[in-house]
C-alpha cells in the first residue's frame, strides 16, 4: 500500500443528519457507485483527502525508483538490466499518471513536489529500507509490488474517476512486476549457496516492512471510516494485510524460504494464517523520518530537483521564445 496514514477530515465519519444538502447528494452518488469527476461537486474534505492520498501514492512511485535504481548499474545480466530498467520506468510512468490525476483536483505537480521535498507530504514507509543485495530486487518485486497490488486492485473501483482509471493501468503493470520479482527469487533459490542465502536474507529484511505497507490496524481510525464512506478507501488495512499474508505464505513455501515469524501458522477456524504483527514503533519511527534511508532518499530527490532546475528553466525559456518567434512570424 503506497498511501499510509492518510488523514481525512480528522473529525471522524460525518453523520447524514449533519451534512449539507449538497454533501448528502454527493454521498448518495457515492453510495450508488457513481464515479465523481473533476468538475462535479465534492466536499472540501473529500478533495483534500484525495489530494493527500493520490499525492502520497505518486511520491511513493517516484521515491520508489531509488531503491531499485540502486541496482540498475549492477544488474547481473543484460536481460535483468533491461527488465529492471523497464520496471523503474513504469514506476516513473505511474508517478506521472497519478500526478495528473491529482492535478484534476487543483494542485500542480510542482506544488506537490515542493510539498514532498519540504516534508509536508509523505511517501510509503517501505522505500526507506535499503536494497543491499541483488536478491532485494526479487524481494521488492515479489513482496512490495505484491502488497501494492493488494491495495491497488480494489482502488480501481474507488469513487474518484481519474484515480480509478489511473489505477487500472497501474495494476496491469504491477502484476507484471510482481511476477518479475518472483522470477528473480526463483533464480536465486535455485542457484548457489550464496544466492540462497541472499534470498532468505532479503525475505527476512523485507517481510515486516511489507506488512507495514498496509498501515496500522484501522479498527479505531477515524480517518479510515470517513475514507471508506467516501470510497476513497475500499478495504480495511487489516483485511488487506491478512489477504497478503494468506497469498504470500504458500509462495514462500514454494520457494523453499522461511517467513521470519515463529508464530506463523494456519488457523483452521478462521481459515487464515495467524501471524505476528510488525513492530509498530519501528513503523512510526520510519514515517516520522527515522527510517534507515529517509534522509538519503529525500536528499536524493532534492539533489535531482535542484540539479535539474537549470534544465527546466531553459526548457521553459526556449518554449516561450519559440512561441514568441512563431507569433512574430504570423
Amino acid at each position, binding site marked *: 500500500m503506497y498511501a499510509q496514514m492518510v488523514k481525512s477530515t480528522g473529525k471522524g465519519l460525518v453523520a447524514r443528519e449533519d451534512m449539507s444538502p449538497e454533501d448528502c447528494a454527493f454521498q448518495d452518488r457515492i453510495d450508488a457507485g457513481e464515479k465523481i469527476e473533476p468538475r462535479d461537486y465534492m466536499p472540501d474534505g473529500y478533495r483534500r483527502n484525495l489530494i493527500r492520498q493520490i499525492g502520497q501514492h505518486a511520491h511513493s512511485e517516484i521515491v520508489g525508483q531509488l531503491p531499485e535504481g540502486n541496482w540498475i548499474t549492477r544488474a547481473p545480466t543484460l536481460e535483468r538490466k*533491461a527488465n529492471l530498467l523497464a520496471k523503474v520506468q513504469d514506476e516513473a510512468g505511474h508517478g506521472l499518471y497519478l500526478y495528473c490525476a491529482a492535478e484534476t483536483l487543483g494542485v500542480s505537480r510542482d506544488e506537490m513536489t515542493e510539498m514532498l521535498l519540504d516534508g509536508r507530504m509523505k511517501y510509503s514507509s517501505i522505500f526507506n529500507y535499503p536494497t543491499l543485495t541483488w536478491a532485494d530486487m526479487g524481494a521488492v518485486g515479489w513482496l512490495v509490488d505484491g502488497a501494492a497490488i493488494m491495495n491497488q486492485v480494489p482502488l480501481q473501483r474507488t469513487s474518484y474517476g481519474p484515480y480509478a482509471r489511473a489505477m487500472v493501468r497501474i495494476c496491469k503493470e504491477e502484476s507484471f512486476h510482481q511476477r518479475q520479482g518472483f522470477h528473480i527469487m526463483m533464480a536465486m533459490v535455485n542457484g548457489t549457496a550464496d544466492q540462497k542465502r541472499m534470498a532468505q536474507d532479503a525475505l527476512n529484511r523485507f517481510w515486516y516492512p511489507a506488512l507495514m505497507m498496509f498501515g496500522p490496524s484501522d479498527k479505531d481510525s477515524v480517518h479510515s471510516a470517513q475514507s471508506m464512506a467516501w470510497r476513497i478507501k475500499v478495504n480495511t488495512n487489516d483485511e488487506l494485510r491478512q489477504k497478503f499474508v494468506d497469498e504470500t505464505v504458500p509462495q514462500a513455501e514454494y520457494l523453499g524460504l522461511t517467513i521470519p515469524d515463529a508464530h506463523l501458522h494456519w488457523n483452521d477456524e478462521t481459515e487464515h494464517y495467524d501471524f505476528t504483527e510488525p513492530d509498530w514503533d519501528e513503523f512510526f519511527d520510519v514515517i516520522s523520518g527515522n527510517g534507515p534511508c529517509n534522509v538519503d532518499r529525500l536528499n536524493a530527490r532534492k539533489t535531482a530537483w535542484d540539479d535539474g532546475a537549470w534544465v527546466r528553466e531553459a526548457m521553459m525559456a526556449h518554449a516561450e521564445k519559440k512561441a514568441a518567434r512563431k507569433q512574430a512570424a504570423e
Partner: protein
Amino acid sequence: MQPLFEFLLRQGDNALVLGHRTSEWCGTAPALEEDIALTNTALDLIGQTQLWLGYAAEVEGADRSANDLAYLRDVHDFRNLLMLEVPNEDFGRTLMRQFLFDAFQVPWLTALQTSADPRVAEIAAKSLKEATYHLDRSAETVIALGDGTADSNARMQATLDYLWPYVGEIFVDDDTDQTMADALIAPLPSSMRPVWAATIEETAKAACLSLPESDFAHHGGRSGVRHTEHLGHMLATMQVLQRSYPGAVW
C-alpha cells in the same frame, strides 16, 4: 582477432557503454518526462547490445555469450568510443553526447541496412528505428538547452567544448574498417563525416552554439589501445556480481 568479431564488438560496446551511462540517470532526471525518456533510451541501447554482442559471440565461436562479453571482459578488450565512457556529469553533457553520437548512428545504421552480411543488415534496420527517434529527441533537447537561458547556453557550450576532442575518433578508419569496407559489410566511418557535420552544424546554429575550431582528436577506444580511466570504474560497478560470484546463474 577476426575483423568481423572486432567490428561487432565496436557496435555492441558503443551501445552497452552508452546504455549503461544513460541507465545511471534512472530516478534522478530533471523532470519525470526526461526520466522516462532517458530510461527508454537506455533500454533501447541495452536491447541493441544484446543483438550486436549476441552475434559477436556467435562469430567468435569460443562458446561465449553476449553476457560473457559484457560482464567478463576487462577495459583493454572493450571497443567503444571514448566519448561514450566519460561520466554523465550533468543532463547537458548527457544529451549533448547522445546527440553527437545519434547524428552519426542514423546515417551509419542507414548504410549498414544494405550490408553484405544479412545479420548486420537486420540488426541495423531494427536499431535504426530507435536511433532515429533518439536523434529527434537529442537534437531537440540540445536546441532547447542551447537556446534557453544565458546559463543553459553557457553550460551547453562548455559541454560541447569538452566533448569535441572525442568526436574525431568516430571517423578514423583503420584496418578493421578497411576489411569491412572491402567485404561490403560496412562503409568506411570517414565517409559518414559530411552528413554528420551537416547535422551538427544545423543543430548548433539553432542552439546558438559555436562549433570548436580544433580538429584534435583523442583516440584509443575503438581500437582498445587506450581507454579513459573512467571505463574501469564503470566496469567495476557493472560487472560486480558476475565477477564476485563466478558461474552463478541470475
